[in-house]
């Protein structure tokens, strides 16, 4: 056909496609052969059929050439009735709208099935309605405020108890926690108070060897 002979790979309505099958599938990679090419042409034709006024696009209208080992090739969509190639803008729009279907047919994604010159619409990030950081911030802040309140309240209660405390000690010394035994009006410190007591009047050399 004359159009096929006139098809120049680097024409303005041609697109280069690059596949990275091994990167995407690793050991499950399939080989790129003429059957896969046929599927590709079918997908492109399918995409074009979705465009208004192009419902009659056939698989034979899609031409593929210059397949390399990479795998990369050029394709172009022709219109045999008018004997010209379809404008790039139309092909671009069609491919963009059906990108997911095309990717899915080959088990690839936007990065491993590249249409050079056709930018893909990137998926928007999934934003939860309330950002996570606000939730955790709220939790931490509430805990801190509650703890501060509790400490302040317990401090107030302690102070109120202390201001009432001295009047009760005279009545019942036995009821106090640290009973201070009094002999001859001189208080004797109990022997087993916390940390021990150091008698300042008596200092020996051994004292500094006393452990922590």
């Amino acid at each position: 056909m004359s159009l096929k002979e006139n098809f120049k790979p680097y024409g303005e309505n041609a697109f280069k496609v690059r596949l990275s099958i091994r990167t995407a599938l690793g050991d499950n990679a399939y080989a790129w052969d003429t059957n896969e090419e046929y599927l590709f042409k079918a997908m492109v034709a399918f995409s074009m059929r979705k465009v208004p006024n192009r419902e009659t696009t056939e698989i034979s209208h899609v031409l593929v050439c210059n397949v390399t080992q990479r795998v990369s090739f050029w394709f172009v969509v022709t219109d045999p009735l008018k004997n010209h190639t379809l404008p790039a803008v139309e092909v671009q729009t069609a491919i963009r709208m059906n990108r997911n279907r095309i990717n899915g047919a080959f088990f690839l994604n936007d990065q491993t099935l590249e249409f050079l010159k056709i930018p893909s619409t990137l998926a928007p990030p999934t934003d939860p309605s309330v950002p996570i950081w606000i939730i955790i911030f709220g939790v931490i802040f509430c805990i801190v405020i509650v703890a501060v309140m509790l400490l302040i309240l317990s401090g107030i209660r302690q102070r109120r108890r202390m201001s009432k405390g001295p009047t009760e000690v005279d009545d019942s010394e036995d009821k106090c926690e640290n009973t201070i035994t009094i002999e001859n009006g001189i208080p004797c410190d109990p022997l087993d108070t916390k940390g021990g007591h150091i008698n300042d009047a008596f200092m020996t050399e051994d004292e500094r060897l006393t452990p922590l």
Partner: protein
Amino acid sequence: MACAPGPDPRGAGGGHERPSWDNRLQYLLSCIGFAVGLGNIWRFPYLCQTYGGGAFLIPYLVALVLEGIPLFHIELAIGQHLRTGSVGVWKAVSPYLGGVGLGCLTVSFLVSMYYNTVLTWVLWYFLNSFQNPLPWGSCPLDLNRTGFEAECQASSPVSYFWYRRTLNITADISDSGSIQWRLLACLAASWAVVYLCVIRGIESMGKAIYFTALFPYLVLTIFLIRGLSLPGAVKGLTYLFTPDVRILQSPRVWLDAATQIFFSLSLAFGGHIAFASYNPHRNNCEKDAVIISLVNSLTSLYASIAMFSVLGFKAANDHGRCLDRNILRLINAFELPDQSVNRDDYAAVLSHLNATQPERVARLCLETCRLEDFLDKSASGTGLAFIIFTEAILHMPGAPGWAVLFFGMLFTLGLSSMFGNMESIITPLLDMGVTHRFIPKEVLTGLACLVCFLSAICFTLQSGNYWLEIFDNYAAPLNLMVFAFFEVVGVAYVYGVQRFSDDVESMTGRRPGLYWQVTWKVVSPLLLLTIFVAYVVTLARTPLSYKAWDTQYVRFPTRQEKSYPGWVQAACVLLCFLPVLWVPAVALAQLLAAHRRKKDTGRDRCPKL
């Protein structure tokens, strides 16, 4: 025992007994927590890397022995003996030195302001770490969703998250912008946490310190174990720790080591004096000083091993991805089969292609990928934590968990340092009798936290980071060196080394030996004077400039070097000198008062003649 003039050793409190630590461990942990701060994580590894790896440890240890430990011992001993905060202590040593205490209080206030702002940033990152994928891993999309935001594309997702989503920084310091409400909320939260822990002074702090001082060590160990198992970690460690002994010939190394020790131990803030003042009189402060200083230095070393192993992994990762990008370019240009060239074959394939088709290869603009270049990329301060390390975490499996651990560790590290800062403000205020008996301690601590919080709001402006750098560079260093110099000279010469040794003997039971006498009298003052002079000279020679994040800059994402406007330069000078002015001011006031008293007594005597 020397009779010290000055305040009642029980501490001014209107008859209230001075609170004391529940046990010695709390006291040690508080001092360790105060000394071990963010600088141990992000300043020491950088210095190690810049100054010849393992060789840096030599000047570091020398500075520790000659300057760090003696000064530290002075602070602990004098606080423990006089049992009062920094203001009372220096007034007791000599009335003319009373300004030193007030200056320490002022510097502590200034540092508290900006230090907690750094914690605010850490908290913000911590809150954002509870999601997968991490928000600094990818760029946001631009308006028509075909590509990424231009600013992010030009720099990197981590830089974008730091400069735009966290700071929302302006291009110039004179453009203040608006208050960032996210940062304001986090600032309020971090001040609330600080208040919660210092609310009752050492009673509440002593309980909190068990967690805040020990948690970082746990996380560092986890990072160390994980880091060492990552690919590329060992190579990074050996490269970064390999000593380059020639570097010791440069005086700058010794200077930086001495400066680092000085700031690392948090000397001259008055915090250690405050902590020691709550000790029982009989406590071996000499052993404490040695233990805490050694723990601080060992922590720095431990942290740098953990950091370097992760950074080595990051360098190996970046190098690998650089190779992958080059390989992709080669494969695409020469239509080679997909995945046919792996990283090991790359060099051979490249040389083969270079030999056969050099012009096509030259047109590809391949990057040079050398592992050493990636290992040499170093940073200190916020750049290390928020840009470089966050990027390293992105590539570790289970990234959100590691991010949570890392920022949790940074937060607790900074928090325990904040305790020391707040105590160095609160303890002198309590001892000065600023509050009457009817105002409880909780209100005083609340007021202190509130004042600091309100003053720190200026750092939540869009230009806040630039101001924070100013505070970090000018408010603290010079003033602290001056105060430390006056401290050691005041104790060694004004108070008297003999009298001080008597005090120490009464507390520890052993008289300080020759090492202490020599360092207190000669070595430490000389060293301090030298580093002060060298620091001033270096400061005078560097032009006052800052690095601005300007998207309109021609060489964006490199930061543009701009010089400070006049009024900002005036602010820098003010910050440098205002706290120090307390010393001559108080000395002058005392001189005038003494002169007036002499005149009065002279007048009284006259009629008798």
